[in-house]
């Protein structure tokens, strides 16, 4: 099967009314790696992820996958900052993406059970998803995005409201997914998390990429004053 990657974004802009939220942005997402998207609030991190995933309409420019869009879309996952919980129990929430893509209900529910075990929700299969804690909800959302083995996974600050333990659990799941071949793009405010996970970094400000490159280069020899300020812990606006 042809890989959907690399993804090429050319001159992409996203506007709300007259305000430009993103762009113009040019970037290529290679088939391997763990890209961390950094930037202050309003920098365009969420918009960039949503544009790459196809949740935002591009006002100009293009996003090109290696396969037709419909096929590419079905081989991606997205984890939102505020996890969307369906009005279902844990098992059915996990089984849902499989069932809508043609997996038999019985098999889907079995695989959902296995994934629930993997993420530590094995004893909560029949519990309403809406009643889980914040960390459990985010783990469920992550497992729901990963259950179909997506080629690429987008995550919008998935650990923003989580404590250290939940963050560590999420990071472990992500590292396993990456090791299994899933390409990951994730936005975060947490520089420590970026250092732990990133293979490369995209630094956004004002809707534009102002610095991008391998994580080691970005963290050791940043080339822009804004990146230096960010890494020094100064306030970057």
């Amino acid at each position: 099967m042809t890989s959907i990657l690399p993804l090429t974004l050319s001159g992409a802009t996203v506007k709300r009314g007259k305000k430009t939220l993103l762009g113009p942005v040019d970037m290529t997402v290679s088939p391997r790696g763990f890209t961390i998207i950094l930037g202050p609030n309003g920098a365009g991190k969420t918009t960039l992820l949503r544009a790459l995933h196809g949740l935002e309409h591009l006002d100009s420019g293009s996003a090109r996958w290696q396969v037709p869009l419909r096929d590419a879309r079905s081989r991606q996952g997205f984890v939102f900052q505020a996890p969307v919980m369906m009005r279902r129990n844990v098992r059915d929430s996990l089984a849902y993406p499989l069932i809508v893509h043609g997996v038999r209900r019985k098999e889907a529910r079995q695989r959902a059970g296995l994934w629930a075990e993997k993420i530590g929700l094995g004893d909560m299969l029949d519990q309403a998803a809406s009643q889980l804690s914040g960390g459990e909800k985010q783990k469920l959302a992550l497992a729901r995005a990963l259950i179909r083995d997506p080629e690429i996974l987008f995550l919008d600050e998935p650990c923003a409201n989580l404590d250290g333990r939940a963050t560590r659990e999420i990071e472990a799941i992500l590292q396993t997914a990456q090791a299994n071949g899933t390409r990951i793009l994730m936005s975060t405010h947490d520089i420590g998390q970026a250092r732990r996970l990133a293979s490369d970094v995209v630094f956004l400000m004002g809707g534009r990429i102002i610095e991008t490159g391998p994580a080691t280069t970005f963290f050791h020899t940043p080339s822009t004053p804004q990146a230096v300020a960010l890494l020094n812990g100064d306030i970057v606006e």
Partner: protein
Amino acid sequence: MNEILEGLKAASWLVLTFDSDLVEITLRSLQVTLTAVAIASLIGLPLGAWLAVHRFRHRRATIALLNALMGLPPVVVGLVVYLLLSRAGPFGVLDLLFTPTAMILAQIVIVTPLIASISHQAMRDLWASYHDLLISISTRKRQRIATLLWDGRRALITAALAGFGRAIGEVGAIMIVGGNIEHATRVLTTAIALETGKGNFDLALGLGFVLIALAILVNVTTHMIGRTESEGKW
């Protein structure tokens, strides 16, 4: 006050003795109303979800029209259905006028906009929270509608119950198309209208109490079956 007490006594007597006319009228009321609500739900619930998910040119106008149709005057509906089903009308050959089927048709016309509109409001809110997720999972439009209907089923029970409430208490349209014929098309509401006209207030009140009890019974039963008040389980 005396008439209400007499009504209560009459109602109790009718119920306790399983009065054959009352049983027949009650069963016909239920048959007509439940059939109409079931068919209206089959049309209205998916229509509401479809309107929540689908974007098209005159969507706002369609929703406004649907909301306006909730206030359709039943007597006018009855008149239109009468004209359609009368011998000179386009469906006269079906010979449906003054039958329970005609009453069901009239009630479907009255109740469908109500169910569709309430369904649309509930589905619109659910769609707002599910939108990004279902797009992200790459679902097809039909799957989105099915998901909304399943996950929003509690709200949809409320929509169907609202339809039932309107239909069970409806009198104008079914009087016109049903004719209130004894042992054929007489239902609780038309019987109440008839007994009131004859001055039999105690019997009319008795039938009224039965009607109210029936409406409450169906509501409570539906809530219990749908577990609409239970938390933590879907």
